[in-house]
């Protein structure tokens, strides 16, 4: 029985057969398609590509096996489905099949006002929700023309929350990476640290996750009076714990064996594939939007951009571990620099009035009503704004037609583009390393599928 036939029989009853989206056996593909899935397209010269037409199907095809990993699988970081063609234990081709978490968020975004848009966008990358809200708010503000008028306090609060979110996201990476490699205790440690950051978020925003706190015009509420103490306690606790992780993992021979040389990607490949974030930095290119195309006040802060040399999974792990340290450094600088002032722009068009004033003033009541029911109108135009999320460049493209809801709201999700690097990284490796590779890319399926 060929793999396709058996696949059909088993899955036909439940309708999980995704037809042409799945990995097809070599005999059904053209040479160009095989080479694309194998990942060698990028490294070929034109002369080699011209010879492709003469490459016949691999004579050893009957010795290869196509297996299916996911979508329900303990290590695929959500509902990622991978079809792998194996020869023994070696992965020849890999095809990720996504869409299992497609939520129609871009369509939903077209029916929500710009004030409500944050609730939708925040659930895309659910590990760093504040970054999603930030990029959406920045795009809206650019369309409104108020991006230069956001009060200083609001900008610094946004930076503080964004960096704390980077820390909690990278701590979760450490936890899940550890568990995927087999260091199950790391899972518990990472979550323990992350919990402290989440409790701070709850104190500030009201929710542990999916906060809808960063809104067009500023932030939704002010920081509580004792926020500095809470942040200091996080900053005091973490460095020793990170040192423990260094002992537990970074310098440990088993960890190094498992991750060094696994999932290698070259700089040219990463740029060609559009991979950004730790993947691009692990190849040696120091590209970080906070440094190279700064937004908010990142150009006033001192921090290093961590770069790897080999483009392998170990580099990506080390980059993320050290980015936690760099984020702590940034937060320490922010602690002193948050000025007093408004936490949101005082532009009546965009910002609802404070709750207390609604009881006193008729205008405030009407104004609140209009903003929350109809929404504020955004002038016609289109913008693309990008920031550095823990996974890479997250961008928001909004096309507005002058109405209170976006005409088209598209989010350029870093994981969606990074997942394309999977076939290139896995080719020639062992199937046991597949999990390490997926984990080192740190995909979040919510933003892959939106």
């Amino acid at each position, binding site marked *: 029985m060929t793999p396709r036939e058996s696949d059909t029989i088993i899955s036909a009853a439940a309708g999980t057969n995704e037809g042409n989206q799945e990995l097809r056996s070599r005999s059904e593909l053209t040479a160009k398609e095989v080479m694309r899935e194998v990942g060698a397209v990028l490294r070929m010269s034109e002369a080699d590509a011209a010879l492709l037409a003469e490459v016949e199907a691999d004579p050893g095809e009957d010795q290869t096996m196509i297996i299916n990993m996911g979508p329900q699988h*303990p290590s695929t970081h959500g*509902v990622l489905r991978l079809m792998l063609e194996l020869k023994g234990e070696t992965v020849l081709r890999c095809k990720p099949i996504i869409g299992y978490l497609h*939520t*129609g968020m871009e369509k939903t975004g077209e029916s929500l006002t710009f004030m409500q848009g944050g609730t939708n966008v925040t659930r895309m990358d659910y590990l760093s929700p504040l970054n999603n809200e930030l990029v959406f708010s920045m795009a809206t503000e650019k369309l409104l023309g108020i991006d230069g008028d956001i009060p200083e306090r609001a900008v610094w609060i946004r930076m503080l929350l964004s960096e704390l979110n980077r820390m909690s996201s990278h701590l979760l990476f450490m936890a899940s990476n550890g568990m995927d490699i087999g260091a199950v205790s790391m899972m518990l440690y990472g*979550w323990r640290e992350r919990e402290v950051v989440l409790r701070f978020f709850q104190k500030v925003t009201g929710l*542990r996750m999916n906060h809808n706190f960063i809104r067009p015009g500023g932030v939704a509420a*002010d920081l509580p009076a004792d926020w500095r103490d809470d942040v200091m306690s996080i900053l005091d606790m973490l460095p020793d714990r990170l040192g423990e992780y260094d002992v537990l993992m970074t310098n440990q021979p088993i960890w190094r064996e498992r991750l060094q040389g696994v999932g290698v990607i070259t700089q040219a490949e990463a740029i060609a594939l559009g991979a950004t974030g730790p993947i691009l930095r692990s190849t040696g290119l120091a590209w970080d939007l906070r440094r190279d195309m700064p937004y908010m006040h990142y150009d006033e802060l001192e921090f290093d951009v961590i770069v790897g040399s080999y483009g392998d999974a170990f580099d990506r792990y080390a980059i993320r571990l050290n980015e936690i340290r760099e984020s702590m450094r940034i937060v320490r600088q922010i602690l002193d620099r948050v000025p007093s002032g408004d*936490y949101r722009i005082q532009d009546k068009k965009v910002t609802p009035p*404070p709750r207390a004033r609604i009881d006193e003033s008729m205008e405030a009541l009407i104004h609140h009503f209009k903003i929350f029911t109809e929404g504020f109108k955004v002038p016609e135009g289109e913008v693309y704004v990008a920031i550095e999320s823990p996974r890479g460049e997250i961008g928001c493209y909004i096309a507005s037609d002058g109405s209170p809801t976006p005409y088209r709201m598209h989010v350029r999700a870093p994981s969606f583009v990074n997942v394309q690097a999977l076939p290139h990284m896995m080719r020639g490796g062992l199937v046991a390393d597949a999990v390490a590779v997926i984990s080192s890319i740190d995909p979040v399926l*919510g933003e892959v599928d939106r």
Partner: protein
Amino acid sequence: MGVVRNVLDDGLEGIDHNFLTGRIEDLVKWSRSRSSWGATFGLACCAIEMMGTGAPHYDLARFGMEVFRASPRQADIMIVAGRVSQKMAPVLRQVYDQMMEPKWVISMGVCASSGGMFNNYAIVQGVDQVVPVDVYAPGCPPTPETLIHAIETLHQLIEDGEIMRRRATSGAGANVHIQEVPAGITTPVILGSR
């Protein structure tokens, strides 16, 4: 329990009888409820909170649930954590079918319970359209306390035998709705006076 007090006071000599009688049914229900293993079905944001509930601060292990089995054949409870898309629904059903009886389903979060904020073409409006649900846990995402409340409600139903009774009568899930438990910190968020 007097037996426990006697043992604590006098050690083994405190046991004045060495037979305990009870019904096998009670023993079976008690052990089922105290060591139910979950099937990993974390889909989206709720999965993160579910993992957080298994983490040290909230610790599902004390309820016998720290082990999340990857193979549905070895699992008792399927916690559907996250939004179920049209493409995922047949997979959900397939995993549910592979679980062995007795099996229970907790629908975690509003997206799994009713489609949540995503009332559109892409999301199944409630997993009860695909699998029978026993406990619905509201929240977006439910706090770990809410999830523990849902799990403990389910455990209580299992231990009472209530759940098997409902199954026998309706053929569907137990259909229990619980209240959301707000997370521990009660500092009010400052909405500002300016």
